[in-house]
């Protein structure tokens, strides 16, 4: 399995995908505090034209919270990019037939699945925490992160939500023939749980809850409120992995 992991790593580096992804998340990480920092200046430059329309701008104060608001706004976009990047991880190999020599050499399919699962999770983990770390660093430098509560717990929830999404991506990859089907399936699940979570009855027991980090930061929610969503996410991740193992063993390569 180490050989297969090494191969995944080599592909990520040499195709330039790793570099692009890290750059994107680096940019996101810098943009969050930068946008917050620029808001007063933007308001000032706009104030003249706003005054013409009858709006008056009072003094704008910015703190770490504004930067975190940006972070939570931007991270879904980052997640979409990771999904797009990973959607062809399996299907690309099915279409080219590159897994056939590997399987016929006797590498077990479970090891392939595990290696691919680990590499997509690692990709998300590194990208996400890079973005988080940069935003955290700038916020600490410009303002004070102390005003945001449960900062790391909230951060970890988003990370877990990403892992949950990737678990579905892997499951759909083991049944689908092309990356479009993988994207449709994964997107469908995200959208479905999002719509369901609008009903107050389900809101607390769906993984979509994990994305609501701002309520934690602002002290509206406490970590205990997330127990339902957390448990649901972990159960679904495990279920996806079991189903993926079963399906991948039967997959026609």
């Amino acid at each position: 399995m180490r050989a297969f992991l090494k191969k995944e790593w080599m592909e990520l580096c040499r195709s330039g995908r790793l570099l692009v992804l890290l750059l994107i998340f680096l940019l996101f990480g810098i943009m969050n505090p930068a946008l917050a920092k620029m808001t007063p200046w933007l308001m000032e430059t706009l104030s003249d034209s706003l005054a013409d329309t009858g709006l008056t701008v009072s003094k704008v104060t910015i703190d770490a919270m504004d930067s975190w608001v940006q972070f939570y706004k931007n991270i879904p976009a980052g997640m979409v990019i990771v999904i797009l990047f990973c959607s062809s991880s399996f299907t690309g190999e099915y279409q080219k037939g590159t897994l056939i020599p590997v399987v016929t050499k006797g590498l077990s399919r479970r090891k392939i699945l595990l290696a691919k699962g680990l590499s997509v999770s690692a990709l998300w983990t590194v990208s996400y925490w890079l973005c988080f770390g940069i935003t955290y660093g700038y916020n600490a430098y410009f303002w004070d992160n102390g005003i945001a509560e449960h900062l790391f717990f909230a951060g970890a929830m988003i990370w877990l939500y990403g892992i949950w999404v990737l678990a579905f991506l892997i499951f759909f990859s083991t049944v689908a023939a092309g990356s479009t089907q993988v994207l449709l399936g994964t997107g469908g699940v995200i959208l479905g749980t999002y719509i369901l979570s609008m009903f107050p009855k389900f809101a607390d027991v769906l993984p979509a809850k994990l994305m609501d980090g701002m309520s934690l930061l602002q002290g509206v929610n406490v970590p205990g409120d997330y127990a339902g969503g957390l448990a649901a996410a972990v159960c679904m991740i495990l279920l996806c992995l079991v189903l993926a193992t079963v399906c991948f063993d039967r997959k026609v390569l």
Partner: protein
Amino acid sequence: MDMLTLSHVAKRFGEKQVLKDVTFSVPEHTVFGFVGKNGAEKPTAMKLILGLLAGDGGEITVNGMSVRYGNTPTNRFVGYLPDVPEFYSCMTPFEYLRFCGEISGMSSKEIRARSEELLCLVGLEHENRRIRGFSRGMKQRLGVAQALFGRPGLLICDEPTSALDPAGRRELLDILTDAKEQTTVVFSTHILSDVEHICDEAAFLHDGKIVLKGTIEELRTARKAAAMELEPEQPEDTRRLLSVFPYLKSTGKRNVLLEDEKHLPQILHFLADQNISVLRIERQETSLEELFMEVVGK
């Protein structure tokens, strides 16, 4: 001992029964030709042997162990060369072979030695480019190297020569012949001259069944006695021959064909008596091609 046996193997794709009753066995250290025309589902049979497809009946064993779909343990004995081999394009041939060696759990010293040996064998030892820029023929060569890498007991090649130029084809056939010392080779093809050149045994797949099988010698004698072809020098002599011997067939401007050999002395007498000069009298070689045409009913 038989390295590979298929008994009553069947496969259906939806309504279509593509393999009905495929039965043959391949003894150790032979080169076995698996012949069929395009669309005869040879690749399907090969994928069944590799456990890449689930069969609908019958049994396949490799080295005495039975093949099952999915993770088949028999793949440890097998090297496979797909018809259009595809590899990770970001790697160099050497890196790809190292990857293959690591998968099969070889030591790094062994991997290096084996890579050098095989890259030399297939003529890719100076290629440090990535596989991305390789032509189909080069990929085919690398395919041979990776298939032989783990010293498999059974080497399965799917149409290995179809993408190669005549020189490359000759080289590949030589490699397969040499490989016979260490392994058993099964290759599918529709090019019958390849089979005649290097195979010890062959089986013809047609209409989902094995219609003919045996050693190359057996196959050649399986056909009825060979015909004789005569070519007199003058066209009018041809006409005379045809009018005197009604069982002769005209096969060209001057050529006549004698299907039954027992009439030959009679004709030779006639030629001598009439003082007819003859350009050639030739026994037609029974080629596998004619045999193939005969069994597929064309």
